[in-house]
C-alpha cells in the first residue's frame, strides 16, 4: 500500500514570496491533516479535512495560510506572503479509522 505522498520535499524562498505544498493521501482515507513542525518542537495541527470539508482550522493563520481539498483526495497548502517564522517542516497525514499516517514532509526555509 502506497503511503502519503508530499511534494516538494524541500523549498527555499525569500520572505514575502508565496509557496504551495501538495499532498496525496493514502487511497480511501477520508480524513486529511496538515501539521506544522518547527525545529525542536512537536507537530502542530493547522487544518483537518473530512473528505473535502474543513473540520478544524482553528490554528491556521488565515491571513496568510490557505488550504483546499477540492475533490476530497489531494490537498494543497499555500502560504502568501511567507514570513521568516514560517520556516518549518509541513507534514501531511491521512487517516481512515482514527489512526493518522504521515508523509515525509516538506521542509520550508524562508530567508
Amino acid at each position: 500500500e502506497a503511503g502519503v505522498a508530499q511534494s516538494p520535499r524541500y523549498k527555499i524562498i525569500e520572505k514575502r514570496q508565496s509557496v504551495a505544498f501538495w499532498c496525496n493521501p493514502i487511497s480511501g482515507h477520508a480524513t486529511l491533516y496538515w501539521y506544522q513542525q518547527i525545529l525542536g518542537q512537536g507537530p502542530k495541527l493547522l487544518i483537518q479535512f473530512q473528505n473535502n470539508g474543513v473540520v478544524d482550522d482553528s490554528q491556521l493563520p488565515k491571513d496568510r495560510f490557505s488550504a483546499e481539498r477540492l475533490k476530497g483526495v489531494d490537498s494543497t497548502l499555500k502560504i502568501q506572503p511567507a514570513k521568516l517564522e514560517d520556516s518549518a517542516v509541513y507534514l501531511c497525514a491521512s487517516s481512515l479509522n482514527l489512526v493518522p499516517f504521515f508523509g515525509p514532509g516538506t521542509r520550508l526555509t524562508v530567508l
Partner: protein
Amino acid sequence: AQSVTQPDIHITVSEGASLELRCNYSYGATPYLFWYVQSPGQGLQLLLKYFSGDTLVQGIKGFEAEFKRSQSSFNLRKPSVHWSDAAEYFCAVGALTGGGADGLTFGKGTHLIIQP
C-alpha cells in the same frame, strides 16, 4: 485544552539497556494515545496506539506502552535498545468529537541517544 508533556528532552541509553520514555497528558474526555518515532529527515512512523481495553499495548520494533489513567500517563518502554532506535520520539493525544476524530496534540518530543 488538551496538552501533552514529555519531560525528558534528551535521554542517553547504552545499547542493550532498557528504555522508558515518559509521557503525561491532560485531556477532559477519554483520550486515545499514540507514540510516533521520527528519524532525521523523515516523517513520523507509528509505533503503537491505545484506544481502549488492555492498558498494556504492544507495538512495532519491540516497543510497548502502558496507559495509566490515574496518573494520566502513557509511558513507552523497550527491554533492550538497539543502535537503530536512536531517533526523536513523540507522544500524542486525540479524542473523539461529535464530528469524528479530532487532530492530535503532540508533545515536544524526546531525543534518544544510544551509546555503544
